[in-house]
């Protein structure tokens, strides 16, 4: 497989890898690095890519695992301060309400979810994968995915309703 062939395979889902990486790592730069890292790994395997059932699913799995490893390494390496800087989306309600951009606070609410649920929301509600593909990417059963998805959506709703109601009361 030469470079052009590889790019035609990879380019359609390159941005999906990036968005998944960003969902987990939060920082754009780190997500870019993760995307590159995964694509380079894929490139080294490119000679037998055809033998894999779905290159995209494999790339998504690799991205997820890579990002989770990065997060784990950060936590164990006493880098927590850097990390909590990013996840500061878990800040107080007051600050969330002050965010003028309502889409931005949805983003912050999503950051409060556990990583696994964030990945599931990303795959389903943003990338719109069907459950078969998600099962392949996550190596989970469909029912387990549905349970986690429901839990994640309800958590988002709860947090949004909280801030929504609070905003309303404050507005009066």
């Amino acid at each position, binding site marked *: 497989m030469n470079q052009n062939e590889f790019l035609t395979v990879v380019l359609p889902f390159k941005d999906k890898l*990036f968005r998944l990486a960003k969902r987990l790592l939060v920082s754009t730069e780190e997500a870019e690095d993760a995307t590159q890292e995964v694509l380079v790994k894929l490139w080294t395997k490119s000679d037998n890519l055809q033998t894999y059932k779905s290159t995209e699913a494999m790339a998504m799995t690799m991205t997820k695992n890579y990002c989770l490893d990065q997060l784990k390494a950060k936590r164990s390496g006493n880098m927590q301060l850097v990390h909590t800087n990013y996840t500061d989306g878990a800040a107080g309600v007051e600050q969330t309400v002050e965010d003028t951009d309502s*889409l931005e606070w949805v983003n912050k609410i999503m950051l409060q979810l556990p990583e696994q649920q964030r990945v599931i929301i990303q795959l389903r509600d943003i990338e719109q994968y069907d459950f078969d593909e998600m099962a392949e990417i996550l190596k989970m059963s469909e029912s387990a995915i549905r349970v986690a998805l429901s839990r994640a*959506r309800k958590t988002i709703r709860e947090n949004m309703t909280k801030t929504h109601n609070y905003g309303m009361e404050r507005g009066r």
Partner: protein
Amino acid sequence: MEWSEVDSLLEKYFNGETSLNEEQQLRDYFSTQVPAPHLQQYQSLFGYFDQAKVEECPKQLPIFRTVKPARNRMLWWSAAASVVVLVGWSTFALLQTNGTEQSDLGTYEDPKVAFEATQKALSMLSSQVNVGIESVQYIEEYQIAKNKVFKKPVAKQQGS
């Protein structure tokens, strides 16, 4: 879409039971219509999903230009190295064989002369082989002395 319909779809949605198609209906509803007041809080959620889907990786990917050549360069270096080794080794081997040609000892043309020369060489060798055998004879003395000291085993052997 009616409110009640949206309500029931949302109920399914939060239970993780909607299909992709139904989720698309929800997205469409929230992006095209002014939602009912009690549904307004979900507008930003679905709006966010739509917005998040179009974000692109800002970094272009120059990596494959650097990765593949790196691999090739490796290949070229190893090829060059092996050529150097091969050339070096073969010139060395060539010099060696040239050296042996110079120290050629010559040969015999006539088989009879060659036979005599061989016999002479072999007899010279065999006469030299036995040199020093006398000095080994002394070792026999040790055996005799040992037999004198350890009489019993010898006597036993004689007795039996």
